[in-house]
């Protein structure tokens, strides 16, 4: 089946085509939402943010030059908006929320039982990583971004992308070890 490329959709959006906007939204909104949600850890905030992200796409479409993939461009916008929101959010609210989330997982008897399962232990540890580490792991594994694309989204050199990913994985292994899962690495 033939589909219109993201680049073509964006050039139509630049001309005010609302249908093209709907198509682009339908194609990307879930991934952008999940990326933002992992950063802000609040569903309502994440929903508000994706409306803002796509509104920026509507406004900035004429400036999109197609040098990077449209999804990379959108994730960059999403990241900027998520971090701005986090900066505006009161410190105590963030701490309570983060603590609450970790506590919820830890107190859940099902989760405790599932710790025996390496997969769920891994998923639980993924939620406990720092924002920087969560972000890079998601970008590489879930959003399938190359070293160059991650560097563009996060705004760091490519060498730093590789080392940050390495340390994120190392931290993940350490968290797993604390839960009794020794992977024999690092």
């Amino acid at each position, binding site marked *: 089946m033939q589909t219109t490329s993201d680049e073509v959709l964006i050039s139509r959006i630049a001309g005010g085509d609302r249908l093209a906007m709907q198509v682009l939204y339908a194609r990307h909104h879930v991934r952008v939402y999940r990326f933002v949600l992992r950063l802000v850890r609040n569903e309502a905030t994440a929903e508000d943010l994706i409306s803002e992200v796509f509104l920026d796409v509507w406004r900035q479409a004429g400036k999109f030059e197609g040098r990077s993939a449209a999804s990379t461009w959108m994730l960059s916008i999403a990241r900027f908006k998520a971090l701005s929101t986090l900066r505006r959010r009161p410190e105590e609210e963030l701490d309570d929320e983060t603590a609450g989330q970790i506590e919820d997982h830890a107190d859940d008897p099902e989760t405790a039982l599932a710790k025996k399962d390496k997969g769920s232990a891994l998923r639980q540890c993924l939620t406990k990583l720092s924002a920087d580490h969560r972000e890079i792991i998601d970008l*590489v*594994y879930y959003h399938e971004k190359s070293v160059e694309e991650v560097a563009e989204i996060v705004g760091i050199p490519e060498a730093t992308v590789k080392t940050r990913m390495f340390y994120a994985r190392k931290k993940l292994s350490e968290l797993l070890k604390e839960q009794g899962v020794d992977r024999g690495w690092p």
Partner: protein
Amino acid sequence: MNSKQEAPERQDIEELLPWHAAGTLSRRDAQRVEEALARDPELARRYALVREEFGETIHLNETLGAPSARALEKLFVAINAEPERRQVASLNLGSRISEFFSSLSPRTLAWSASAAAIAILLQAGLLADIMLKETKTSAYETASAPTTDPGVGAFTLIRFAPQASSDDVTKFLEANKLSIAAGPMAGGLYKVRVAVTGIPKGEFARIVKKLQEDKVVSFIAATE
């Protein structure tokens, strides 16, 4: 090569493993990783760990759900509040060409090619006819060929359904006594003449509504 010399290379390759698992390395780097994995069992074991992380990260993200319809509604409320903007041309020739071809399904493309071939044949016939007539008359004529006024009549803009074959489109045009006046234009639209003279508004709206119900039509709008 001793182990001290191997260590930096292993570190270098190990850093690439997550991208290798995700399939986002260049062909050259992917080849380097493949070769290293084949000769280094410890690296291969670590790659298995990377693949576990890869799978579980996807699993975790997939459990995050999706935003409600509220996000889309909010977006379009904001877009509708934005100042109206004029249609602008695509960024460059490449985008325009890409835009044009992407608007056509393979069938429509094939149909367009057939229509173009027919148009060339018709033009050839018309020119031959003019030349034959010229031999029969010595009266003065302008340099342009005699035509009916292309701006006269009632027109619609139509985008044909992607699944419509050239036969479907031809039958649709014949059955409704329509002719294509221009196109394909941006967005795969064709300017189609509904009547050779102007027709009352109500009658025109009725015809457009009737045409809209045909499965061959994916979009139709009255135009000047």
